[in-house]
């Protein structure tokens, strides 16, 4: 957006969304800590599970050929052309198109991250620690982006989506079940077993659907 419509309105939009996010986190964070841990794990686990299955489902369909893999460069070129051709409307001295698109983008993606950080933090009893982890991840991702940009760029987007889906689904099953009153055999170590199970069925589904696709072809 900055490249096609100019940086000022884009950065103001991103900044406004960051402030809105901070307000949401400040309001939700303390509220989450007063909810009983069992209820919280059930709700958080359920939401993570539904989120994770959305990611995993799409990643499996793409990996098996039942859904088109996103061509990131084509999407970038198309959206850049759309942004460049959108009419310029000035409001409050800002290019309103650049402001609203960057505001919505930062707010929606940020909400997803904030939700994950808040829920992980509250179920494990330390929101500051989860926030610290998220901050460390931001620094690591920026550094990795600078140092190993080329090899990272070759990692397919769908592989990343697949990994995110597997992780969210795993944590969703683990916490959701605990919230529903389950005692995992082996305690927290069972998380690794759940992870292996989710990974195994996901890879199995990709293989099975790929065969099915070939049979239909």
């Amino acid at each position, binding site marked *: 957006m900055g490249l096609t419509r100019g940086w000022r309105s884009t950065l103001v939009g991103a900044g406004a969304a960051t402030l809105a996010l901070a307000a949401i986190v400040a309001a939700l964070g303390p509220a989450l800590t007063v909810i009983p841990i069992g209820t919280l794990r059930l709700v958080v686990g359920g939401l993570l*599970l*539904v989120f994770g299955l959305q990611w995993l*489902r799409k990643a*499996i369909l793409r990996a098996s050929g039942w859904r088109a893999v996103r061509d990131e460069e084509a999407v970038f070129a198309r959206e850049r052309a759309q942004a460049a051709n959108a009419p310029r409307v000035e409001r409050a001295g800002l290019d309103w198109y650049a402001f609203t698109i960057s505001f919505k983008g930062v707010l*929606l993606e940020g909400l997803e991250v904030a939700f994950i950080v808040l829920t992980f933090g509250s179920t494990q009893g330390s929101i500051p620690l989860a926030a610290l982890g998220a901050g460390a991840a931001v620094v690591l991702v920026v550094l990795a982006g600078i140092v190993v940009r080329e090899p990272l760029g070759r990692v397919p987007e769908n592989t990343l989506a697949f990994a995110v889906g597997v992780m969210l*689904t795993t944590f969703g099953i683990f916490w959701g079940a605990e919230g529903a*009153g*389950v005692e995992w055999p082996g305690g927290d170590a069972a998380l690794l077993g759940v992870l292996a199970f989710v990974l195994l069925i996901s890879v199995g*589904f990709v293989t099975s659907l790929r065969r099915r*696709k070939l049979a239909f072809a």
Partner: protein
Amino acid sequence: MKRFGKFWWDFIVGDDWRVAARIVIAFGLTALLATTSVPAWWVLPLAVAAVLWLSLRRVAR
């Protein structure tokens, strides 16, 4: 208001509402079994596998 509701629906439920509905049922079954003396830890992983496969099959047919 309608758009606000649609945003949250898309954000949480996504494009297959059956997944969310079946997961809610699976949680109910897990909670029910957890009140008995039978171990209930296996219900949710198996339910997730079944729910995911059913959702994938709807597309891949």
